[in-house]
């Protein structure tokens, strides 16, 4: 019995060690691959070249869809900022998703909105549209007032209303850099196989904003926000750049992504889930492969969207909980892709990575922490080994964070002050002491909540959705 237990413990330790080595090895490989590719990208798109690339006639008109729910504080400034984007032809569709505050009223007053019965193509399902407004000051601004139905529902409504073949979805509290749209849409012109592109989402907190534009980039003051800067830089610059190479990018941030409307319509638009952004991209992969459509889903590191991140622990944990449930839900919904060679790299590499590393990782890590406590209490902990293992974990993690900050500095130099860089480097080291464990705990909790709620949901009725016919009737 004791021998069996010893074998189990040994096997467990080997598993944890192998898992840890594999995951960190993968991350390190990502940093190296990204370094090479971002450098190559920078060679191609040097500053003077980008100025040329972004001022040409070869663009595709874009509809920007902004779902807004209770955004009265920021909506006017954000709409003004979006209207000032440098793009030859675009329309801005703000979808007021049944806000309970004065979001709509503020829009009506600020942009001289008037009601207009504009014809709408109802190709996707969503909750009822109450009214459509156009602006007398800005011909390319459209505001849709609809019943509350969640972000995915609002986006589907925006897709129905918008006129152009490409659409860009952005969060109402995000700010796009002036040339971000041009940079992100460039690939749609160059390559007809591109069905979606995503840009770099950076943390806005701490930076100076004036007139709806980021005028000075600074590291945030609060520790919780600074940790998120590290996470965003690491995640976007290394992870997503590496996924590009294998055409296995399974996520484009909901805060900023451009999509081909016809493809999104074909897959039925956004699905109602907490992780609608990832879900959409996973389904696009699946649909295109199933229907033998040549496609590319790409991440571009230079178009930047600035977003507000949670500035308190409660909101942060709630966000991460939501993201993790969304991740599992998206993977579960397209589970046929798992290790399925039919889906090429996305199936045999991207999908398993997201399952084993992103979805399962917090559980493995949490059990690892628990086992340390258990081994300590039972006197089975080899202290020398535990300490060395912790040091390896800490230094390896820091190396990946430092590498990402270095990469960001080599290529983009967004942060102007040296003390901001030092702060980011320092927080890259500190991340392992408490912050990481806190996030892991929440994601571990989210895993259980997802399965618990999924099983619970089966016993409840489906939420009633209006049909196309009802929606059509309501418009007529």
């Amino acid at each position, binding site marked *: 019995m004791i021998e069996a237990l010893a074998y189990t413990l040994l096997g467990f330790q080997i598993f944890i060690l192998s898992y840890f080595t594999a995951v960190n090895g993968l991350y390190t490989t990502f940093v190296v691959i990204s370094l090479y590719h971002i450098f190559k990208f920078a060679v191609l798109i040097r500053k003077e070249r980008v100025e040329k690339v972004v001022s040409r006639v070869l663009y595709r008109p874009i509809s920007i869809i902004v779902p807004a729910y209770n955004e009265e504080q920021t909506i006017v400034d954000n709409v003004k900022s979006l209207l000032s984007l440098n793009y030859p032809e675009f329309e801005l569709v703000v979808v007021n998703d049944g806000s309970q505050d004065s979001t709509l009223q503020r829009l009506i007053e600020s942009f001289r909105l008037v009601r207009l019965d504009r014809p709408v193509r109802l190709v996707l399902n969503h909750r009822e549209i109450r009214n459509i407004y156009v602006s007398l000051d800005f011909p390319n601004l459209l505001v849709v007032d609809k019943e509350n139905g969640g972000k995915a529902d609002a986006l589907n409504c925006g897709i129905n209303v918008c*006129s152009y073949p490409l659409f860009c979805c952005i969060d109402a509290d995000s700010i796009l850099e002036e040339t971000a749209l041009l940079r992100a849409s*460039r690939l749609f012109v160059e390559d007809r196989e591109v069905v979606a592109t995503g840009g770099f989402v950076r943390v806005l907190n701490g930076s100076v904003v004036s007139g709806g534009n980021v005028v000075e980039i600074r590291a945030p003051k609060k520790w919780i926000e600074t940790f998120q800067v590290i996470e965003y830089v690491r995640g976007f610059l290394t992870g997503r750049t590496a996924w590009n190479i294998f055409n296995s990018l399974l996520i484009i941030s909901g805060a900023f992504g451009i999509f081909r409307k016809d493809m999104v319509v074909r897959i039925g638009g956004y699905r109602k889930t907490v992780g609608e952004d990832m879900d959409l991209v996973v389904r696009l992969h699946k649909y295109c492969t199933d229907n033998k459509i040549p496609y590319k889903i790409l991440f571009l590191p230079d178009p930047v969207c600035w977003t507000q991140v949670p500035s308190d622990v409660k909101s942060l944990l709630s966000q991460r909980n939501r993201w993790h449930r969304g991740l599992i839900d998206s993977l579960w919904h397209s589970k046929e892709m798992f290790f399925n060679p039919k889906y090429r790299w996305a199936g045999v590499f991207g999908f398993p990575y997201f399952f084993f590393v992103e979805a399962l990782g917090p559980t493995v890590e949490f059990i690892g922490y628990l086992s340390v406590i258990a081994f300590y209490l039972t006197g089975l902990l080899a202290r020398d080994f535990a300490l060395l293992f912790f040091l390896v974990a800490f230094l390896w993690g820091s190396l990946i964070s430092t590498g990402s900050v270095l990469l960001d500095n080599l290529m983009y130099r967004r942060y102007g002050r040296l003390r901001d860089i030092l702060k980011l480097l320092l927080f890259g080291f500190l991340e392992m002491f408490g912050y990481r464990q806190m996030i892991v705990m929440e994601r571990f909790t989210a895993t259980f909540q997802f399965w618990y709620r999924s099983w619970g949901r089966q016993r409840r009725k489906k939420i009633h959705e209006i049909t196309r016919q009802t929606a059509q009737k309501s418009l007529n």
Partner: protein
Amino acid sequence: MEFTAGEFSTFKEVLILIVLTLFALNALMFIATIVHRLYVDYRDRKYDRSYKKFRRYVEEVCGGGDLRIKPSGTVEYEALTDVLIDFLRETSYSAEECVLRIAEESGVINFLRRQANSFLLNTRVTALERLGYLNDSWAEKEIRKRILESERGWLAGRLAFAYSLLVYDLERLKFLMDAVSKSKEMSFKYLELIWENIITNFKRTGKVEDLISYIDEELTRYKDYERVLRAMVETAGMLRERSFAPLIEKIHDLFAEDDLMVLSTLRSLGTIESPAYCRLFLRSVSHRDWRIRAVACKYAYLCPFEVAIDKLRERLADESYYVRINAGKALASFGHCSMKVLKELAQSEDRFARDTARYLLEEMRLRE
């Protein structure tokens, strides 16, 4: 199963080695980030100072002053190079003689030629591009040689761009066209930039008719390289080069089966805004491809109202939403002339036409 003391000790030693290596790498990354940052900040400040200084000098020299400009160090040479190129472009090449003289006398040309042989790929290509801007004959031969040797698509793109800055005659144009036609990886943006340089250079030297005749003669050859030709069509439209319109029309007819080419020619002619090609738009409003119908409807406003009205009216009931909206907008752009027609359509039994007409009328009323 147990670890022996020796095995555990070896394992521990390996772990200690890993810890030390990771620690060293961390320290290295940390130092590299800081040092790099301090260096680039210093370099940027120096570049800005130098740029301002040389800008004043160049303006003075080209204004008739007598100054000897002698940069020292890479940053100063780069700043002077940029000043010269910017000055050349801002003055639309009217100060070309003066700028090229400064480039020669100050050692910029020699500096760039040395950089064109750097071991760093980006430095090499950037230097060649800059030599292209400065119309250097040595660079012409050098880039030509490297284009022939280059196999990588993106590199060929940048070299071809550098070469296009030097294309003033048909001999060079032929060489470049051969090169870009072979490079299948070259992005459409590069092709567009290349054509812009070529068209601008030929215009500047008063040889644009030669260029048009050359392309015209070679049209059949381009059957296999339609994207090169399509980039030319789009670029000519973007530059609003009316002299290219007859050629674009010819391409439109020759490539009538190629939807993308038809799309580009219509868009280009529409951007040039020549009413002479109205019939092409009207013919295309009933095309089988909705994208072509949409573009044709968009530019149908260039036609006289009486000629366009029936076709546009018909398109208001098109199966494609984009075609309907573009047809409606084209109708609305005729202003009061189209009011009567839109009012009639607002009572139509066709739901698409009715909704679009009502919406346009309402919008016109609100915006008045």
